[in-house]
Protein backbone atom coordinates (compact mmCIF):
# COMPACT_ATOMS: atom_id res chain seq x y z
CA UNK A 1 0.00 0.00 0.00
CA UNK A 2 1.22 3.47 -0.83
CA UNK A 3 2.10 6.02 1.81
CA UNK A 4 -0.55 8.57 2.63
CA UNK A 5 0.89 12.07 2.56
CA UNK A 6 -0.93 15.36 2.90
CA UNK A 7 -1.58 18.65 4.59
CA UNK A 8 -3.33 18.63 7.96
CA UNK A 9 -6.76 20.13 8.65
CA UNK A 10 -7.10 20.06 12.40
CA UNK A 11 -10.35 20.13 14.41
CA UNK A 12 -11.54 19.49 17.96
CA UNK A 13 -13.50 16.84 19.89
CA UNK A 14 -16.92 15.35 19.08
CA UNK A 15 -17.07 16.26 15.39
CA UNK A 16 -20.52 14.79 14.73
CA UNK A 17 -22.03 13.32 11.59
CA UNK A 18 -24.32 16.33 11.17
CA UNK A 19 -21.41 18.71 10.66
CA UNK A 20 -19.52 16.21 8.50
CA UNK A 21 -22.47 15.68 6.19
CA UNK A 22 -25.62 17.65 7.07
CA UNK A 23 -28.80 15.63 7.57
CA UNK A 24 -30.73 17.84 5.16
CA UNK A 25 -28.74 16.35 2.28
CA UNK A 26 -29.00 12.69 3.22
CA UNK A 27 -31.95 11.91 0.96
CA UNK A 28 -31.36 14.45 -1.78
CA UNK A 29 -27.62 14.53 -2.47
CA UNK A 30 -26.25 11.23 -3.74
CA UNK A 31 -23.85 12.22 -6.51
CA UNK A 32 -20.24 11.66 -5.30
CA UNK A 33 -18.95 15.01 -6.53
CA UNK A 34 -21.82 16.88 -4.98
CA UNK A 35 -21.41 14.94 -1.74
CA UNK A 36 -17.73 15.89 -1.69
CA UNK A 37 -18.66 19.55 -2.06
CA UNK A 38 -20.61 19.41 1.23
CA UNK A 39 -17.91 17.61 3.23
CA UNK A 40 -17.48 19.17 6.68
CA UNK A 41 -19.72 22.01 5.54
CA UNK A 42 -21.18 22.92 8.93
CA UNK A 43 -17.81 22.70 10.69
CA UNK A 44 -15.52 24.46 8.22
CA UNK A 45 -17.16 25.91 5.11
CA UNK A 46 -13.69 26.48 3.55
CA UNK A 47 -12.63 22.88 3.79
CA UNK A 48 -14.25 21.45 0.67
CA UNK A 49 -13.19 24.48 -1.38
CA UNK A 50 -9.56 24.57 -0.37
CA UNK A 51 -8.52 21.02 0.45
CA UNK A 52 -6.38 19.01 -1.95
CA UNK A 53 -6.76 15.28 -2.55
CA UNK A 54 -4.61 13.42 -0.06
CA UNK A 55 -5.05 16.00 2.69
CA UNK A 56 -5.51 14.62 6.17
CA UNK A 57 -8.20 15.45 8.71
CA UNK A 58 -6.94 15.40 12.30
CA UNK A 59 -9.41 15.63 15.19
CA UNK A 60 -9.96 14.97 18.89
CA UNK A 61 -12.06 12.33 20.56
CA UNK A 62 -15.33 10.74 19.39
CA UNK A 63 -15.01 11.73 15.73
CA UNK A 64 -18.17 10.88 13.78
CA UNK A 65 -20.52 10.60 16.72
CA UNK A 66 -24.27 10.74 16.20
CA UNK A 67 -26.10 9.12 13.36
CA UNK A 68 -25.18 5.90 11.58
CA UNK A 69 -25.29 7.68 8.23
CA UNK A 70 -22.68 6.28 5.86
CA UNK A 71 -22.61 9.45 3.81
CA UNK A 72 -20.50 11.10 6.50
CA UNK A 73 -17.70 8.69 5.63
CA UNK A 74 -18.31 8.64 1.88
CA UNK A 75 -18.34 12.45 1.62
CA UNK A 76 -14.78 12.65 2.96
CA UNK A 77 -13.71 9.73 0.80
CA UNK A 78 -15.18 11.34 -2.32
CA UNK A 79 -13.51 14.64 -1.42
CA UNK A 80 -10.23 12.77 -1.60
CA UNK A 81 -9.31 12.90 2.09
CA UNK A 82 -6.23 10.71 2.54
CA UNK A 83 -7.01 9.69 6.09
CA UNK A 84 -8.70 10.80 9.28
CA UNK A 85 -6.51 10.73 12.38
CA UNK A 86 -8.36 11.13 15.68
CA UNK A 87 -8.03 10.48 19.39
CA UNK A 88 -11.02 8.15 19.04
CA UNK A 89 -13.87 7.40 16.67
CA UNK A 90 -17.55 6.68 17.23
CA UNK A 91 -18.04 2.99 16.53
CA UNK A 92 -20.38 3.23 13.57
CA UNK A 93 -18.27 5.95 11.95
CA UNK A 94 -15.20 3.76 12.25
CA UNK A 95 -17.00 0.88 10.53
CA UNK A 96 -18.53 3.07 7.85
CA UNK A 97 -15.15 4.66 7.10
CA UNK A 98 -13.43 1.33 6.64
CA UNK A 99 -16.27 0.15 4.46
CA UNK A 100 -16.01 3.35 2.41
CA UNK A 101 -12.27 2.75 2.01
CA UNK A 102 -11.44 5.85 4.06
CA UNK A 103 -8.41 5.21 6.33
CA UNK A 104 -9.19 5.99 9.98
CA UNK A 105 -6.34 6.06 12.45
CA UNK A 106 -6.64 6.23 16.18
CA UNK A 107 -3.50 7.90 17.51
CA UNK A 108 -4.26 10.12 20.53
CA UNK A 109 -0.67 11.21 21.21
CA UNK A 110 0.00 12.05 17.60
CA UNK A 111 -3.13 14.23 17.53
CA UNK A 112 -1.73 16.38 20.35
CA UNK A 113 1.61 16.72 18.58
CA UNK A 114 0.41 17.45 15.05
CA UNK A 115 0.17 21.09 14.06
CA UNK A 116 -2.52 22.49 11.78
CA UNK A 117 -1.29 22.96 8.24
CA UNK A 118 1.82 20.78 8.45
CA UNK A 119 2.39 17.92 6.05
CA UNK A 120 2.34 14.46 7.61
CA UNK A 121 2.90 10.95 6.35
CA UNK A 122 1.11 7.73 7.27
CA UNK A 123 2.20 4.16 6.63
CA UNK A 124 -0.85 1.98 7.13
CA UNK A 125 0.92 -1.33 6.83
CA UNK A 126 3.65 -0.49 9.32
CA UNK A 127 1.33 1.44 11.60
CA UNK A 128 3.50 4.58 11.57
CA UNK A 129 2.63 8.24 11.46
CA UNK A 130 5.41 10.76 10.80
CA UNK A 131 5.01 14.44 11.57
CA UNK A 132 7.29 17.36 12.57
CA UNK A 133 7.22 16.34 16.21
CA UNK A 134 8.41 12.82 15.43
CA UNK A 135 7.20 9.35 14.58
CA UNK A 136 4.17 7.87 16.28
CA UNK A 137 3.09 4.28 16.17
CA UNK A 138 -0.48 3.09 15.98
CA UNK A 139 -1.70 -0.50 15.94
CA UNK A 140 -1.55 -1.67 12.33
CA UNK A 141 -4.91 -2.57 10.92
CA UNK A 142 -5.84 -6.23 11.03
CA UNK A 143 -5.52 -8.09 7.74
CA UNK A 144 -9.27 -8.43 7.30
CA UNK A 145 -9.71 -4.68 7.44
CA UNK A 146 -6.58 -3.85 5.44
CA UNK A 147 -7.96 -5.96 2.60
CA UNK A 148 -11.08 -3.79 2.48
CA UNK A 149 -8.94 -0.63 2.18
CA UNK A 150 -6.74 -2.10 -0.48
CA UNK A 151 -9.79 -2.96 -2.57
CA UNK A 152 -11.14 0.58 -2.15
CA UNK A 153 -14.02 -0.21 0.19
CA UNK A 154 -16.44 -2.95 1.21
CA UNK A 155 -18.44 -3.14 -2.00
CA UNK A 156 -15.44 -3.45 -4.37
CA UNK A 157 -13.84 -5.81 -1.85
CA UNK A 158 -16.94 -8.01 -1.84
CA UNK A 159 -17.11 -8.01 -5.62
CA UNK A 160 -13.47 -9.04 -5.79
CA UNK A 161 -14.01 -11.82 -3.28
CA UNK A 162 -16.99 -13.11 -5.18
CA UNK A 163 -14.94 -13.04 -8.36
CA UNK A 164 -17.15 -10.43 -10.01
CA UNK A 165 -15.08 -8.33 -12.38
CA UNK A 166 -15.10 -4.61 -13.15
Amino acid at each position, binding site marked *: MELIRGKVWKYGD*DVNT*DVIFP*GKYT*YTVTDPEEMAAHALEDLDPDFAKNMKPGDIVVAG*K*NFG*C*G*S*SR*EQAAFALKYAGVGAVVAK*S*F*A*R*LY*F*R*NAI*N*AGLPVIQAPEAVDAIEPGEVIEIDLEKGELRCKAGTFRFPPL*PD*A*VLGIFQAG*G*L*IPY*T*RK*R*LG*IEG
Partner: protein
Amino acid sequence: MGKTFAEKVLGKKAGKDVVAGEIVEIVPDFAMSHDNTAAIAKTFEKIGVAQLYDPNLHVIILDHAAPAPNAKFAENHKEIREFVRKHGIPNFFDINRGICHQVMVEEGFALPGLVVVGSDSHSTTYGAVGAFGTGIGRSEMAVIMATGRIWLRVPETMKIVVQGTPPEGVSAKDIMLKIIGDLGADAATYMAVEFTGETIERMTLASRMVLSNMAVEMGAKIGYIPPDDTTLEYVRPRARKEFEVIHSDPDATYAETHTFDVSDLEPQVACPHTVDNVKPISEVKGTKIHQVFFGSCTNARLEDFEVVAKALKGRRVHPDVRMLVFPASQQVYLEALKKGYLQTILEAGAIVMNANCGPCMGNHAGIPASGEVSLSTSNRNFRGRQGNVEAEVYLCSPLTAAASAIAGEIADFRDVL
Protein backbone atom coordinates in the same frame (compact mmCIF):
# COMPACT_ATOMS: atom_id res chain seq x y z
CA MET B 1 -8.61 -16.88 32.07
CA GLY B 2 -12.36 -16.31 31.98
CA LYS B 3 -14.15 -14.82 29.03
CA THR B 4 -16.85 -12.22 28.67
CA PHE B 5 -20.19 -12.82 26.96
CA ALA B 6 -18.97 -10.92 23.88
CA GLU B 7 -15.83 -13.04 23.61
CA LYS B 8 -17.78 -16.26 24.06
CA VAL B 9 -20.53 -15.49 21.55
CA LEU B 10 -18.24 -14.21 18.83
CA GLY B 11 -15.77 -17.04 19.48
CA LYS B 12 -18.55 -19.57 19.11
CA LYS B 13 -19.69 -17.97 15.88
CA ALA B 14 -16.16 -17.74 14.50
CA GLY B 15 -15.37 -21.30 15.54
CA LYS B 16 -12.24 -20.35 17.45
CA ASP B 17 -11.02 -18.90 20.70
CA VAL B 18 -11.09 -15.09 20.55
CA VAL B 19 -10.21 -12.24 22.88
CA ALA B 20 -11.22 -8.58 22.91
CA GLY B 21 -9.57 -6.57 20.14
CA GLU B 22 -9.60 -9.34 17.55
CA ILE B 23 -11.63 -9.06 14.38
CA VAL B 24 -13.81 -11.96 13.34
CA GLU B 25 -15.88 -12.63 10.28
CA ILE B 26 -19.16 -14.36 10.98
CA VAL B 27 -22.59 -15.16 9.61
CA PRO B 28 -25.16 -13.51 11.91
CA ASP B 29 -28.26 -15.41 13.03
CA PHE B 30 -30.61 -12.69 11.88
CA ALA B 31 -30.20 -9.36 10.08
CA MET B 32 -32.87 -6.71 10.48
CA SER B 33 -33.54 -3.77 8.20
CA HIS B 34 -36.50 -1.41 8.03
CA ASP B 35 -37.58 1.38 5.71
CA ASN B 36 -33.92 1.69 4.71
CA THR B 37 -34.17 -1.66 2.91
CA ALA B 38 -34.83 0.06 -0.41
CA ALA B 39 -31.48 1.87 -0.25
CA ILE B 40 -29.77 -1.32 0.89
CA ALA B 41 -31.33 -3.26 -1.98
CA LYS B 42 -29.84 -0.76 -4.44
CA THR B 43 -26.36 -1.33 -3.02
CA PHE B 44 -26.98 -5.08 -3.07
CA GLU B 45 -27.79 -4.83 -6.74
CA LYS B 46 -24.54 -2.92 -7.34
CA ILE B 47 -22.58 -5.84 -5.94
CA GLY B 48 -23.88 -7.90 -8.81
CA VAL B 49 -25.10 -11.08 -7.13
CA ALA B 50 -28.40 -12.37 -8.47
CA GLN B 51 -29.71 -14.03 -5.34
CA LEU B 52 -29.61 -13.47 -1.63
CA TYR B 53 -27.10 -15.60 0.25
CA ASP B 54 -29.94 -16.72 2.51
CA PRO B 55 -33.40 -15.12 2.44
CA ASN B 56 -34.14 -16.62 5.88
CA LEU B 57 -31.41 -14.51 7.46
CA HIS B 58 -33.26 -11.27 6.85
CA VAL B 59 -36.08 -9.74 8.78
CA ILE B 60 -37.64 -6.67 7.19
CA ILE B 61 -40.02 -4.50 9.15
CA LEU B 62 -41.65 -1.30 7.88
CA ASP B 63 -42.01 1.17 10.73
CA HIS B 64 -40.13 4.42 10.24
CA ALA B 65 -42.87 6.26 8.39
CA ALA B 66 -45.91 4.06 8.41
CA PRO B 67 -48.30 4.50 6.73
CA ALA B 68 -46.33 6.45 4.12
CA PRO B 69 -46.74 10.20 4.70
CA ASN B 70 -45.92 11.21 1.12
CA ALA B 71 -45.27 9.85 -2.34
CA LYS B 72 -41.53 9.45 -1.74
CA PHE B 73 -42.03 7.21 1.27
CA ALA B 74 -44.78 5.36 -0.58
CA GLU B 75 -42.39 4.59 -3.45
CA ASN B 76 -39.80 3.51 -0.93
CA HIS B 77 -42.23 1.05 0.69
CA LYS B 78 -43.29 -0.20 -2.71
CA GLU B 79 -39.69 -0.92 -3.73
CA ILE B 80 -39.20 -2.86 -0.51
CA ARG B 81 -42.33 -4.96 -0.99
CA GLU B 82 -41.17 -5.77 -4.52
CA PHE B 83 -37.71 -6.70 -3.31
CA VAL B 84 -39.21 -8.97 -0.63
CA ARG B 85 -41.39 -10.71 -3.19
CA LYS B 86 -38.63 -11.05 -5.76
CA HIS B 87 -36.24 -12.69 -3.31
CA GLY B 88 -38.78 -14.69 -1.36
CA ILE B 89 -37.91 -13.19 2.01
CA PRO B 90 -40.25 -14.97 4.42
CA ASN B 91 -39.79 -12.70 7.42
CA PHE B 92 -41.42 -9.53 6.23
CA PHE B 93 -43.66 -7.38 8.39
CA ASP B 94 -45.59 -4.64 6.67
CA ILE B 95 -46.73 -1.37 8.22
CA ASN B 96 -49.35 -3.08 10.39
CA ARG B 97 -46.93 -4.75 12.81
CA GLY B 98 -44.96 -2.20 14.85
CA ILE B 99 -41.53 -0.76 15.60
CA CYS B 100 -38.70 -2.95 14.31
CA HIS B 101 -36.86 -3.57 17.59
CA GLN B 102 -40.04 -4.39 19.49
CA VAL B 103 -41.15 -6.74 16.73
CA MET B 104 -37.75 -8.49 16.67
CA VAL B 105 -38.18 -9.35 20.34
CA GLU B 106 -41.92 -10.14 20.23
CA GLU B 107 -41.53 -12.36 17.19
CA GLY B 108 -38.69 -14.36 18.72
CA PHE B 109 -35.86 -13.34 16.39
CA ALA B 110 -33.87 -11.80 19.22
CA LEU B 111 -32.84 -14.73 21.43
CA PRO B 112 -30.17 -15.53 24.02
CA GLY B 113 -26.72 -16.18 22.59
CA LEU B 114 -27.63 -15.27 19.01
CA VAL B 115 -25.85 -12.62 16.97
CA VAL B 116 -28.55 -10.31 15.59
CA VAL B 117 -27.45 -7.29 13.58
CA GLY B 118 -29.63 -4.47 12.33
CA SER B 119 -29.04 -1.54 10.03
CA ASP B 120 -30.26 0.67 12.83
CA SER B 121 -28.27 1.89 15.79
CA HIS B 122 -30.83 0.81 18.39
CA SER B 123 -30.33 -2.85 17.52
CA THR B 124 -28.58 -2.97 20.89
CA THR B 125 -32.13 -3.55 22.23
CA TYR B 126 -31.74 -7.31 21.64
CA GLY B 127 -29.22 -7.45 24.47
CA ALA B 128 -32.21 -7.36 26.83
CA VAL B 129 -32.88 -11.02 26.05
CA GLY B 130 -29.18 -11.92 26.12
CA ALA B 131 -28.49 -11.64 22.39
CA PHE B 132 -25.45 -9.99 20.83
CA GLY B 133 -27.46 -7.24 19.13
CA THR B 134 -25.68 -4.43 17.33
CA GLY B 135 -26.13 -1.78 14.66
CA ILE B 136 -24.36 -1.92 11.31
CA GLY B 137 -24.18 0.28 8.20
CA ARG B 138 -26.28 0.00 5.07
CA SER B 139 -23.44 -1.22 2.83
CA GLU B 140 -22.69 -3.91 5.38
CA MET B 141 -26.28 -5.08 5.26
CA ALA B 142 -26.05 -5.21 1.46
CA VAL B 143 -22.95 -7.37 1.79
CA ILE B 144 -24.76 -9.69 4.21
CA MET B 145 -27.44 -10.03 1.56
CA ALA B 146 -24.76 -11.02 -0.93
CA THR B 147 -22.39 -13.12 1.17
CA GLY B 148 -24.04 -13.69 4.55
CA ARG B 149 -20.92 -12.32 6.21
CA ILE B 150 -19.93 -9.41 8.36
CA TRP B 151 -16.74 -8.46 10.18
CA LEU B 152 -16.96 -7.53 13.84
CA ARG B 153 -14.35 -6.45 16.32
CA VAL B 154 -14.57 -8.40 19.56
CA PRO B 155 -15.31 -5.61 22.04
CA GLU B 156 -13.95 -5.00 25.50
CA THR B 157 -16.66 -5.07 28.14
CA MET B 158 -17.87 -2.44 30.59
CA LYS B 159 -19.84 -3.80 33.50
CA ILE B 160 -22.61 -1.67 34.99
CA VAL B 161 -23.94 -2.85 38.31
CA VAL B 162 -27.26 -1.43 39.52
CA GLN B 163 -28.29 -1.88 43.12
CA GLY B 164 -31.12 -0.78 45.37
CA THR B 165 -34.87 -0.44 44.99
CA PRO B 166 -35.81 2.85 43.33
CA PRO B 167 -38.57 4.97 44.92
CA GLU B 168 -42.06 4.21 43.65
CA GLY B 169 -42.67 5.47 40.11
CA VAL B 170 -38.95 5.83 39.34
CA SER B 171 -38.40 3.52 36.40
CA ALA B 172 -35.82 1.88 34.18
CA LYS B 173 -35.80 5.02 32.03
CA ASP B 174 -34.81 7.20 34.98
CA ILE B 175 -32.07 4.72 35.85
CA MET B 176 -30.73 4.67 32.31
CA LEU B 177 -30.80 8.45 31.95
CA LYS B 178 -28.89 8.70 35.22
CA ILE B 179 -26.27 6.22 33.98
CA ILE B 180 -25.79 8.04 30.66
CA GLY B 181 -25.73 11.43 32.36
CA ASP B 182 -23.05 10.31 34.79
CA LEU B 183 -20.87 8.33 32.40
CA GLY B 184 -21.27 10.45 29.25
CA ALA B 185 -22.30 9.89 25.64
CA ASP B 186 -18.97 8.39 24.58
CA ALA B 187 -18.23 6.42 27.75
CA ALA B 188 -18.70 3.01 26.18
CA THR B 189 -17.49 3.63 22.61
CA TYR B 190 -16.50 0.29 20.98
CA MET B 191 -17.43 -1.52 24.19
CA ALA B 192 -19.92 -4.17 25.10
CA VAL B 193 -21.96 -3.07 28.08
CA GLU B 194 -23.16 -5.69 30.51
CA PHE B 195 -25.89 -4.67 32.95
CA THR B 196 -26.06 -6.66 36.16
CA GLY B 197 -27.12 -6.29 39.78
CA GLU B 198 -30.16 -6.96 41.92
CA THR B 199 -32.16 -4.04 40.50
CA ILE B 200 -31.88 -5.43 37.00
CA GLU B 201 -32.58 -8.99 38.12
CA ARG B 202 -35.89 -7.74 39.52
CA MET B 203 -36.81 -5.83 36.35
CA THR B 204 -39.41 -7.00 33.85
CA LEU B 205 -38.18 -7.80 30.37
CA ALA B 206 -39.88 -4.65 29.04
CA SER B 207 -37.90 -2.52 31.50
CA ARG B 208 -34.65 -4.27 30.64
CA MET B 209 -35.27 -3.36 27.02
CA VAL B 210 -35.08 0.33 27.98
CA LEU B 211 -31.51 -0.14 29.22
CA SER B 212 -30.32 -2.18 26.25
CA ASN B 213 -32.06 0.16 23.80
CA MET B 214 -30.28 3.20 25.15
CA ALA B 215 -26.88 1.54 25.61
CA VAL B 216 -25.98 2.88 22.17
CA GLU B 217 -26.44 6.41 23.53
CA MET B 218 -23.20 5.79 25.46
CA GLY B 219 -21.57 4.56 22.26
CA ALA B 220 -21.91 0.89 23.17
CA LYS B 221 -21.75 -1.91 20.67
CA ILE B 222 -24.13 -4.10 22.64
CA GLY B 223 -26.24 -3.74 25.80
CA TYR B 224 -26.26 -7.25 27.18
CA ILE B 225 -28.31 -8.39 30.18
CA PRO B 226 -27.59 -11.91 31.43
CA PRO B 227 -30.62 -14.12 30.71
CA ASP B 228 -32.49 -15.53 33.70
CA ASP B 229 -35.91 -17.08 34.35
CA THR B 230 -37.66 -13.83 33.39
CA THR B 231 -35.91 -13.96 30.01
CA LEU B 232 -36.53 -17.64 29.36
CA GLU B 233 -40.18 -17.45 30.27
CA TYR B 234 -40.56 -14.76 27.63
CA VAL B 235 -38.42 -16.16 24.80
CA ARG B 236 -39.22 -19.88 25.00
CA PRO B 237 -42.73 -19.79 23.53
CA ARG B 238 -41.74 -17.50 20.66
CA ALA B 239 -38.23 -18.62 19.68
CA ARG B 240 -37.72 -18.84 15.91
CA LYS B 241 -34.45 -20.68 16.23
CA GLU B 242 -32.54 -22.80 18.68
CA PHE B 243 -30.61 -20.72 21.13
CA GLU B 244 -28.10 -21.12 23.90
CA VAL B 245 -27.93 -19.02 27.04
CA ILE B 246 -24.42 -17.60 27.29
CA HIS B 247 -23.09 -15.88 30.40
CA SER B 248 -19.77 -14.18 31.05
CA ASP B 249 -17.40 -16.35 33.08
CA PRO B 250 -17.17 -15.32 36.75
CA ASP B 251 -13.46 -14.54 36.27
CA ALA B 252 -13.90 -12.65 32.98
CA THR B 253 -11.87 -9.49 32.47
CA TYR B 254 -13.79 -6.23 32.40
CA ALA B 255 -12.29 -3.02 31.04
CA GLU B 256 -14.30 -0.97 33.52
CA THR B 257 -16.92 -1.47 36.20
CA HIS B 258 -19.38 1.18 37.38
CA THR B 259 -21.80 0.74 40.24
CA PHE B 260 -25.00 2.71 40.75
CA ASP B 261 -27.24 2.73 43.79
CA VAL B 262 -30.72 3.86 42.77
CA SER B 263 -32.38 3.75 46.20
CA ASP B 264 -32.85 7.53 46.33
CA LEU B 265 -33.00 8.24 42.61
CA GLU B 266 -35.14 11.20 41.55
CA PRO B 267 -36.95 11.15 38.18
CA GLN B 268 -34.42 12.18 35.51
CA VAL B 269 -34.75 14.27 32.34
CA ALA B 270 -32.33 14.58 29.40
CA CYS B 271 -32.28 18.23 28.28
CA PRO B 272 -31.57 19.59 24.80
CA HIS B 273 -29.55 18.76 22.75
CA THR B 274 -27.63 15.73 23.95
CA VAL B 275 -28.76 12.56 25.66
CA ASP B 276 -26.12 12.92 28.37
CA ASN B 277 -27.32 16.41 29.36
CA VAL B 278 -29.28 14.82 32.19
CA LYS B 279 -30.78 16.69 35.14
CA PRO B 280 -32.92 15.58 38.06
CA ILE B 281 -36.55 16.62 37.74
CA SER B 282 -36.18 19.20 40.51
CA GLU B 283 -33.91 21.27 38.23
CA VAL B 284 -36.13 21.27 35.14
CA LYS B 285 -39.68 21.18 36.43
CA GLY B 286 -41.74 24.15 35.37
CA THR B 287 -40.41 24.16 31.80
CA LYS B 288 -43.36 24.87 29.52
CA ILE B 289 -44.13 22.12 26.99
CA HIS B 290 -46.20 22.00 23.81
CA GLN B 291 -46.16 18.38 22.85
CA VAL B 292 -45.78 15.08 24.64
CA PHE B 293 -44.61 12.14 22.55
CA PHE B 294 -45.37 8.87 24.32
CA GLY B 295 -43.93 6.22 22.03
CA SER B 296 -40.78 4.73 20.44
CA CYS B 297 -38.81 1.51 20.80
CA THR B 298 -37.59 2.80 24.17
CA ASN B 299 -40.81 3.24 26.09
CA ALA B 300 -44.17 2.28 24.58
CA ARG B 301 -44.76 -1.22 25.88
CA LEU B 302 -47.73 -2.53 27.84
CA GLU B 303 -46.24 -1.70 31.25
CA ASP B 304 -45.69 1.86 30.06
CA PHE B 305 -49.33 2.07 28.95
CA GLU B 306 -50.43 0.84 32.35
CA VAL B 307 -48.46 3.58 34.09
CA VAL B 308 -49.67 6.30 31.74
CA ALA B 309 -53.32 5.17 31.86
CA LYS B 310 -53.26 5.12 35.66
CA ALA B 311 -51.82 8.62 35.72
CA LEU B 312 -54.37 9.97 33.24
CA LYS B 313 -57.38 8.22 34.79
CA GLY B 314 -60.01 10.85 35.56
CA ARG B 315 -57.67 13.67 34.54
CA ARG B 316 -57.23 15.79 31.41
CA VAL B 317 -54.27 16.54 29.23
CA HIS B 318 -53.52 20.25 29.63
CA PRO B 319 -55.33 22.33 26.94
CA ASP B 320 -52.02 23.80 25.71
CA VAL B 321 -50.44 20.38 25.23
CA ARG B 322 -50.85 17.86 22.40
CA MET B 323 -50.23 14.36 23.66
CA LEU B 324 -49.37 11.86 20.92
CA VAL B 325 -49.40 8.17 21.71
CA PHE B 326 -47.79 5.46 19.57
CA PRO B 327 -47.81 1.87 20.88
CA ALA B 328 -44.54 0.03 20.21
CA SER B 329 -46.35 -2.71 18.34
CA GLN B 330 -49.74 -3.90 17.21
CA GLN B 331 -49.65 -6.49 19.98
CA VAL B 332 -49.10 -3.80 22.58
CA TYR B 333 -51.90 -1.81 20.96
CA LEU B 334 -54.34 -4.71 21.22
CA GLU B 335 -53.41 -5.53 24.80
CA ALA B 336 -53.71 -1.90 25.82
CA LEU B 337 -57.10 -1.83 24.14
CA LYS B 338 -58.34 -4.95 25.93
CA LYS B 339 -57.18 -3.66 29.28
CA GLY B 340 -59.00 -0.38 28.77
CA TYR B 341 -55.81 1.73 28.84
CA LEU B 342 -56.48 3.26 25.45
CA GLN B 343 -59.95 4.33 26.43
CA THR B 344 -58.60 6.08 29.52
CA ILE B 345 -55.87 7.74 27.48
CA LEU B 346 -58.34 8.88 24.83
CA GLU B 347 -60.79 10.17 27.40
CA ALA B 348 -57.99 12.28 28.85
CA GLY B 349 -57.66 14.01 25.51
CA ALA B 350 -54.60 12.30 24.03
CA ILE B 351 -54.36 11.14 20.42
CA VAL B 352 -53.64 7.46 19.85
CA MET B 353 -51.87 6.66 16.58
CA ASN B 354 -50.89 3.37 14.98
CA ALA B 355 -47.81 1.42 16.07
CA ASN B 356 -44.78 2.97 14.34
CA CYS B 357 -41.83 5.29 15.03
CA GLY B 358 -43.99 8.42 14.79
CA PRO B 359 -42.09 11.69 15.10
CA CYS B 360 -39.13 10.02 16.87
CA MET B 361 -36.76 10.86 14.04
CA GLY B 362 -38.82 13.59 12.48
CA ASN B 363 -40.33 11.74 9.54
CA HIS B 364 -44.00 12.48 10.12
CA ALA B 365 -46.95 12.42 12.51
CA GLY B 366 -46.27 15.15 15.01
CA ILE B 367 -43.31 17.33 14.04
CA PRO B 368 -42.98 20.15 16.60
CA ALA B 369 -43.10 23.77 15.38
CA SER B 370 -40.23 26.23 15.75
CA GLY B 371 -39.71 27.36 19.32
CA GLU B 372 -41.81 24.51 20.68
CA VAL B 373 -40.78 22.07 23.36
CA SER B 374 -41.40 18.38 22.87
CA LEU B 375 -41.24 16.07 25.87
CA SER B 376 -40.56 12.58 24.70
CA THR B 377 -40.28 9.03 26.02
CA SER B 378 -37.87 8.17 23.17
CA ASN B 379 -34.09 7.88 23.21
CA ARG B 380 -32.56 10.83 21.31
CA ASN B 381 -32.83 14.57 21.60
CA PHE B 382 -30.21 15.83 19.14
CA ARG B 383 -30.98 19.16 17.56
CA GLY B 384 -33.49 18.57 14.80
CA ARG B 385 -34.14 14.98 15.86
CA GLN B 386 -37.91 15.33 15.70
CA GLY B 387 -37.82 17.11 12.36
CA ASN B 388 -37.35 20.74 13.32
CA VAL B 389 -33.96 22.23 14.27
CA GLU B 390 -35.77 25.09 15.96
CA ALA B 391 -37.57 22.80 18.41
CA GLU B 392 -36.29 21.47 21.71
CA VAL B 393 -36.60 17.85 22.78
CA TYR B 394 -36.47 16.62 26.36
CA LEU B 395 -36.41 12.91 27.23
CA CYS B 396 -38.13 11.34 30.22
CA SER B 397 -40.00 8.30 31.52
CA PRO B 398 -43.62 7.55 30.58
CA LEU B 399 -44.81 8.55 34.05
CA THR B 400 -43.04 11.90 33.91
CA ALA B 401 -44.47 12.39 30.41
CA ALA B 402 -48.03 11.72 31.62
CA ALA B 403 -47.72 13.94 34.68
CA SER B 404 -46.25 16.73 32.56
CA ALA B 405 -49.01 16.38 29.95
CA ILE B 406 -51.52 17.04 32.70
CA ALA B 407 -49.55 19.94 34.17
CA GLY B 408 -48.68 21.60 30.86
CA GLU B 409 -45.06 21.83 31.92
CA ILE B 410 -42.30 19.43 32.86
CA ALA B 411 -43.50 18.17 36.21
CA ASP B 412 -42.54 15.87 39.03
CA PHE B 413 -45.22 13.19 39.09
CA ARG B 414 -45.13 13.30 42.87
CA ASP B 415 -46.48 16.87 42.70
CA VAL B 416 -49.19 16.17 40.14
CA LEU B 417 -50.65 12.77 40.92
